[in-house]
């Protein structure tokens, strides 16, 4: 085995220029493949980390205006979103819904601590809000069911607000925050990329808003769906259910506004998938060019070495040895220069990551180790192929004729 590799290295060294030129073609192919895939991954990761990508299994509803008459009622009516709609949804839609909750926004008020104050709205929420929006609780806890049931005056702050009001998120826990004259106890702080709301229990917000049953928004948490059809079906069921509850036509698209984040998520997924496929195809085509390059060179190499191959066979080389030697040559060249391509591609990935650090739609455009191994395996196969056809060609020539070649 060692001997065989020695033979191959000797051959490669004898034709340095040719080997290098071939290798460059392969390295380039691999390089492009890795850069493109890294790019695609960067776009995908950025999407998945973005607000759009996360919390994708929620449909949100807001108040709207009717555009169609219904049951004697005219068009142009404002349809509020109410607690009874929440109950209707809970009752009507059972499949694929894991939770129905709502958010009640309050007015902008001044919130004071001992040393500082901020001016903000407050959001009355249910506990499920934390999971739905993936709020990362860094100190203490989030609002829980008991808080909502008892209408306990507790508040959960975003870290930066906590720091402004109390000096640090840790020190905020247990302290009192004055919201519009009412004393709320800080029970937790959270961290999130773009949300910075002040969260209090839904029931408290309701009380502060004069016990009206009108909500800011209803959130329907869905699960177990995977197609656009299902996404749209759920949307229709929601409209029907609230249509019954608030008396508007189920086909009225503007009576309530629905943000089907799930549907959006699905289309984005498809787009990502398409992007990925395109990148793979382009990358593979580029790689094929490289492999064709290797095969080409191997054909030339074999032709040049016809005489030598004739000598070897006359001395007693079995066809299989010649075949193995040539194929292995192809594999060694492809793998060696493929690695160079992987190395350069990875470096390029790092450069891309640095260059695109502030660009929102690309994040972490690097290829993972698993992919690098797959590509390597691909290389070995490609190399074997590149060597195979020239080798078969070489063997077809009889030793006698090969010896006559010069």
């Amino acid at each position, binding site marked *: 085995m060692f001997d065989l590799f020695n033979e191959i290295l000797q051959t490669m060294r004898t034709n340095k220029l040719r080997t290098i030129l071939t290798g460059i073609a392969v390295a380039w192919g691999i390089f492009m493949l890795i850069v493109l895939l890294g790019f695609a991954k960067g776009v995908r990761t950025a999407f998945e980390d973005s607000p759009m990508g996360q919390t994708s299994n929620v449909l949100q509803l807001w108040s709207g205006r009717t555009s169609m008459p219904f049951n004697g009622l005219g068009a142009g009516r404002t349809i509020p979103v109410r607690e009874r709609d929440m109950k209707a949804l809970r009752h009507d839609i059972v499949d694929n819904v894991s939770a129905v909750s709502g958010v009640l926004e309050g007015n902008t008020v001044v919130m004071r601590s001992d040393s500082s104050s901020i001016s903000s709205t407050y959001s009355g929420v249910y506990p499920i809000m934390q999971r739905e929006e993936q709020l990362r609780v860094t100190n203490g806890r989030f609002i829980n069911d008991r808080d909502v049931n008892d209408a306990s005056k507790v508040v959960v702050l975003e870290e930066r607000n906590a720091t402004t009001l109390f000096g640090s998120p840790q020190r905020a826990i247990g302290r009192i925050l004055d919201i519009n004259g009412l004393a709320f106890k800080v029970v937790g702080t959270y961290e999130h990329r773009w949300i910075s709301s002040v969260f209090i229990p839904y029931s408290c917000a309701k009380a502060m808003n004069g016990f009206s049953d009108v909500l800011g928004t209803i959130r329907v948490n869905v699960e177990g769906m995977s197609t656009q059809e299902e996404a749209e079906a759920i949307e229709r069921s929601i409209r029907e259910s609230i249509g019954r509850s608030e008396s508007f036509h189920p086909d009225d698209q503007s009576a309530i506004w629905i943000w089907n984040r799930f549907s959006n998520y699905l289309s984005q997924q498809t787009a990502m998938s398409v992007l990925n496929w395109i990148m793979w195809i382009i990358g593979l085509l580029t790689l094929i060019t490289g492999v064709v390059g290797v095969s080409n060179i191997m054909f030339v190499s074999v032709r040049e070495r016809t005489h030598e191959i004739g000598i070897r066979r006359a*001395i007693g080389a079995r066809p299989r040895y010649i075949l193995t030697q040539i194929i292995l040559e192809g594999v060694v060249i492809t793998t060696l220069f493929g690695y160079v391509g992987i190395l350069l591609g990875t470096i390029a990935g790092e450069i891309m990551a640095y260059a695109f650090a502030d660009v929102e739609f690309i994040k972490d455009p690097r290829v993972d180790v698993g992919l690098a191994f797959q590509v390597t395996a691909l290389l070995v196969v490609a190399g074997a192929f590149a060597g195979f056809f020239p080798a078969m060609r070489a063997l077809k020539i009889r030793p006698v004729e090969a010896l006559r070649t010069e």
Partner: protein
Amino acid sequence: MIHLKDVHKTYPGAVPLHVLKGINLDIERGELVSIMGASGSGKSTLLNILGILDNYDSGEYVLDKRLIRNLGENAAADLRNHLIGFVFQSFNLISYKDAVENVALPLFYQGVSRRKRNAMAIEQLDRMGLREWAHHLPSELSGGQKQRVAIARALITNPAIILADEPTGALDSKTSVEVMKIFRQLNNEGMTTVIVTHDPGVGAQTNRIIRISDGLIIPDSQIVKSQTDMDNKKTDNVSVQHS
């Protein structure tokens, strides 16, 4: 050692070429013979068949008690490796390997370890008087030296026969004499040697000349009248031996 009986070979093609028309030939162990013939006489084809580089259509070829008939490429390669030592007119050394590596190559195909085969190669080179040139490339050797390396390579597998195709064809007269001396020396040590040549001077240094013309071996009694002799103009120097 070598026994050919009624061997025929035809090259296929638009016009099939019947090159060997029934060769009958016997060469004993330890003989030093030359095969002489003009171009087109079939001597190259005969050489290829003797060297198991080509198959024949009918008849029988027995080499060292082995029947050589319709061999697959693998079997043919193995037999070439073990039984035959080739020496070619144009030396046929591999240009990017040094003398030792060239000589050791047949052993590489036998699977002999690197150290062992290199040692054996040095031994053979020593036998040829080329020990100091062991690590030179063919391009750094003279014609005579290259042929001696080729002979060392031919010997390294301890073959049954040495088959030489115009071994002195590319050498000057002085070097030719040296090379022929080596062949005679090897023959004295017991190596069966077959030299294919058109040079009567070479033929004269062998113990028997086998003449081939038009695809057939010319029986010795017909030698004087053969075309080859008339072409050579050196009829006086040709010694005819009765087998």
